[in-house]
């Protein structure tokens, strides 16, 4: 598969983005993916966030035409930027990519380790049930020498294993 942006190199990074309630997938080469993530950070106004999550307000050029909205609670990404509070637990899914970057900056990590509740929500359990599926995917990725994807899947499996104990 070729990269969606440059159309030249092999796509090794696969992103899911939600724009105007539409989910779209992007397949990028490593270099374009890196550039994309730098762009996203700038859109987010990360410097502001790190200064104590105080000033979310400053608009950037790119964001004007991009409205990301949580389909569950109706919170837009802009609103989140302004107030610094998410509207519901599904906002985490809706703003996944941005939050992944943000959490990494705030906490130095974007993976939870630590306790789990006695009852885990059904949607999350479904993810555990697809554990076997992940293992199959891992084998396939290794076979086609897509090591970046393999590493991603391996992390997911570890994640689940950590939660299982």
């Amino acid at each position, binding site marked *: 598969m070729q990269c969606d942006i440059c159309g030249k190199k092999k796509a090794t990074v696969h992103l899911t983005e939600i724009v105007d309630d539409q989910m779209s997938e992007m397949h990028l080469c490593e270099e374009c993916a890196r550039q994309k993530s730098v762009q996203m950070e700038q859109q987010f106004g990360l410097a502001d966030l790190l200064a104590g999550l105080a000033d979310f307000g400053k608009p950037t050029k790119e964001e004007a035409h991009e409205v990301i909205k949580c389909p*569950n609670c109706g919170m837009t990404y802009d609103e989140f930027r302004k107030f610094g509070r*998410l*509207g519901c*637990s599904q906002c*985490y899914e809706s703003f996944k990519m941005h939050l992944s970057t943000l959490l990494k900056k*705030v*906490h130095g990590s974007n993976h939870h380790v*630590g306790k789990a509740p006695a009852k885990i929500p059904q949607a999350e359990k479904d993810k555990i049930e697809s554990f076997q599926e992940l293992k199959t995917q891992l084998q396939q990725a290794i076979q086609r020498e897509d090591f970046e994807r393999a590493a991603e899947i391996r992390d997911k499996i570890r994640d689940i294993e950590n939660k299982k104990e």
Partner: protein
Amino acid sequence: MKLDDFISNTGQWLKGRGAFSNIVMSSRIRLARNLVDKPFPNKARKKDLSDILEIVHQTADGIEFFKKSIFLKINELDNVDKQFLIERHLMSHEHASNPEGKALIVSEEEVLSVMINEEDHLRIQVMQSGFNLDETWKIADTIDDALSQKLDYAYSLHWGYLTACPTNTGTAMRGSVMLHLPALVMTKQINKVLAAISKLNFASRGFYGEGTQASGNFYQISNQVSMGHTELDVLQNINGLIRQVIDQEEQARQALLVQNRPMLEDKIFRSYGILKNAHIISSQETVELLSMVRLGVDLGIVKDVDRMAINELFIMIQPAHLQKIEGKKLSTSERDTKRASLIREKIGG
């Protein structure tokens, strides 16, 4: 149990017991939790908020630890009662300022409090006196487990506990320790210590709440990071840091004793003298003087007062407390008089 009963009781965390209670006032664990199928409070409608109140209230009622607790709807409280709960460190200003659909549960001895519909659906707080984060965590963990048997928490395998603010996502745990550091202040080393703490990604703030200047030489130190480390790792890190701060304070106290004992004793006994004799006193002055007397008690210089009495006074001399004790509204100048008489009564001898 009624709200007014608190006034004649002392919260467990003020008892002046536990490890290093000469320097550490209290240890606190706070957990943020949300229900999976309800919007966070900032996006919730009236109906959502009252549903959440109902669900949490009923669930808590079925748990042993909550048996002797009190359930308060914030919009049914008057201003003095709200201020009173803030002064006792049982709820936040934010919780009181927009009371619609909010509630508070407080357990016997004020070990546990749960704010419902503050920034998150549940803010579980457990406090213990002295330097005892491990025990405090165990209590919080047990209560959290009991609640999660019944409640469906918003939780993701990848992100952990999902909270309204991303600064809490993950474990959604904050551990904090309240320290009394008069010798580090007097020897002018406190800023160096606080700078080191913030470099290590820990936050410090004052005794009288978020965004307040430290007064009475109290500093609360807590973790900032909630993702990528287990709860126990985070606590171990705080413990290590607090032990160092305690060491520094001990050294500064010894240095003051060795280098200038008469000056120190003079400062402590003058403070004690004013508190025992004043008839009009402001809260700011009180807090500074109480800090010196507490140091005197901790160093064995002041022998006829116990630490719990001093700890209690730090809480009791605040405006809403004075008004609850008096049973009526008091103006600023009336409070200054009432405050002085309360202090004389408690430690006047």
